[in-house]
């Protein structure tokens, strides 16, 4: 199965402010009671987005101006906490194709990359500039360029860093490593045979 080469993504953006946004907040645990990832998009940020009676709370994702955004912007340490892949799955199923934040938690970053969602680190100042541009014109086209490691918006360019291995995997269409790992399976069996705890 050939994977898409994810070289750059262009779309509208939405800014969800805050640092240390954890994966429980991205997708509350009750949405994890499922045996497939289908339908998770509805639960995205549910408890900060909705009142218990299902009506909307003030939240950027509820603002009609930002409907259809495909680039999510946020603060530092985005995706911390639980390793639940349900979090990036919900982000993807909601319609986001890239995330830009000051920094990311490790497990979340890896989960996103494996799903083909590029996670870019940008400076706080640049995120504020992009957020301000979106605020002025929610329809503004934002391009996150994986290959060039930059974000282009309204004639401006901001630096966006993505870890080398992830960039390589995305732009070369090998972000899902299963094919390569299967090629290495004979080697894995040899290695396992050398380790007494695995051999027995």
């Amino acid at each position, binding site marked *: 199965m050939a994977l898409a080469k994810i070289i750059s993504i262009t779309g509208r953006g939405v800014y969800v402010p805050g640092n240390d946004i954890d994966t429980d907040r991205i997708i509350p645990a009750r949405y994890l*009671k499922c*045996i497939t990832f289908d339908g998770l998009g509805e639960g995205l940020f549910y408890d900060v987005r909705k009142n218990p009676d299902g009506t909307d709370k003030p939240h950027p994702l509820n603002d009609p101006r930002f409907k259809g955004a495909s680039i999510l912007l946020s603060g530092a340490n985005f995706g911390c906490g639980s390793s639940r892949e349900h979090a990036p799955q919900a982000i993807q199923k909601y319609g986001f194709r890239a995330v830009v934040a000051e920094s990311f938690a490790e497990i979340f970053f890896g989960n996103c990359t494996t799903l083909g969602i590029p996670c870019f680190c940008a400076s706080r100042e640049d995120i504020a500039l992009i957020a301000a541009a979106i605020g002025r014109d929610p329809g503004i086209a934002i391009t996150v360029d994986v290959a060039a490691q930059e974000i282009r918006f309204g004639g401006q360019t901001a630096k966006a860093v993505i870890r080398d291995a992830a960039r390589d995997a995305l732009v070369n269409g090998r972000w899902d490593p299963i094919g390569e790992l299967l090629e*290495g399976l004979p080697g894995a069996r040899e290695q396992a045979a050398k380790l007494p705890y695995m051999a027995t």
Partner: protein
Amino acid sequence: MSKSLFEKVWSAHTVGRLADGQTQLLVGTHLIHEVTSPQAFGMLRDLGLKVAMPRRTFATVDHIVPTDRFSEPFADPLADAMIKELRRNCAESGITFFDRATGKQGIVHIVGPEQGITQPGTTIACGDSHTSTHGAFGAIAFGIGTTQIRDVLATQTMALGRLKVRRINVTGRLRPGVYAKDVILHIIRTLGVNGGTGFAYEYGGEVFDRFTMEERMTVCNMSIEGGARAGYVNPDETTFAYLKGRPYAPKGAAWDEAVARWRAVASDAGCVYDDVVAIDASAIAPTVTWGINPGQGVAITENIPDPALARTADEKASIEEALAYMKLVPGAPIKGTRIDVAFLGSCTNGRLSDFQEVAKFIKGRRVAPGVKAIAVPGSQGVGMLCAELGIDRVFRDAGFEWREAGCSMCLAMNSDKLVGEQICASSSNRNFKGRQGSPTGRTILMSPLMVAAAAVTGAVADAREVFGI
């Protein structure tokens, strides 16, 4: 050349280098549970793949099980579908499942060590971020996502970038009434919730040399709360003594050989770390959280932070956000904060020694009126040992509900949940917004004995005063 345990284990499990520069790492032991694995088995079926080394995966059920009464079918049809799906997947693939009927069911991070599956010098992965717990044995253990579970099932390997190693030395002696939980809450408070990003934490120093395995597990468990994907302690005589005789531990001559290998895998004296941090044990007090992440903690003798005194705009904003959610008064003492619920359990503090320690102090005491107190053993094994020792009786007599094994109120994927704006004194690991099941519920993290002190007084209290320590 001197090497750290991390380097030795990493190189012994390296299969090769992938095109993107990451390592194809052999996962010696794979643990699975009902929440994050069913989709992975679905992906395997879609790709027409089979489990490559089924004997190296072990399963249990923990997140969704009701702890008030284990009776199937579960009242919650979604939970019931999940346990059935896990049974089917394990049966079809030949994976050992510590199901309820085996008497060995429990929280995955309690079952692995209890069965002797968790061993030094191994790599362990599980679709749960608290997999770092197993590092207490000198294993490199980390949480993974569901697509990676698929990778491990299909190939017993995964793609991973190498971590740096930060040595954390906790020197001196802990003061009475200060526990492993306080040590890790103190470390996270000191280094920050993202201070460990990109690192494995190697914990050491006199405090860890003296710690039991269960204390080491409590600390390693919460490494991820400090941003570190893995945390470990070098194996020593304490490790070997814990493992000897456990069901999956090597036996006879193989035991002696294993111990020799385990000794050799410990970090060499003089090995170079990417970073070293020193922490003075005597400076650690019983620690409780006041905010919405595990780094927002204070000593029980301190006050709730005041945003007006914050040093940076960032800090001010994060204090304000946390206090708005927690509805606590800036600058007020944390001690005396009324609680509604006391929860004792979880993969952080649901082991025999946690209940034993609390039982010593609550004998003859009563849970305060209006407080719901629940004690949840982390595994059926822990529950049985507590019953043999009469510990369950001590808890019941004190007014605690004594439950059956599971994750319970740590994450509210079962019937144990906070209601409305209830405040919970909790021995678990996360105080995120909504974590314990109510979107407005509030969590204060603390050690098991501090939970007991809160339970009997009805408010956040200093266990040293309450129990005369």
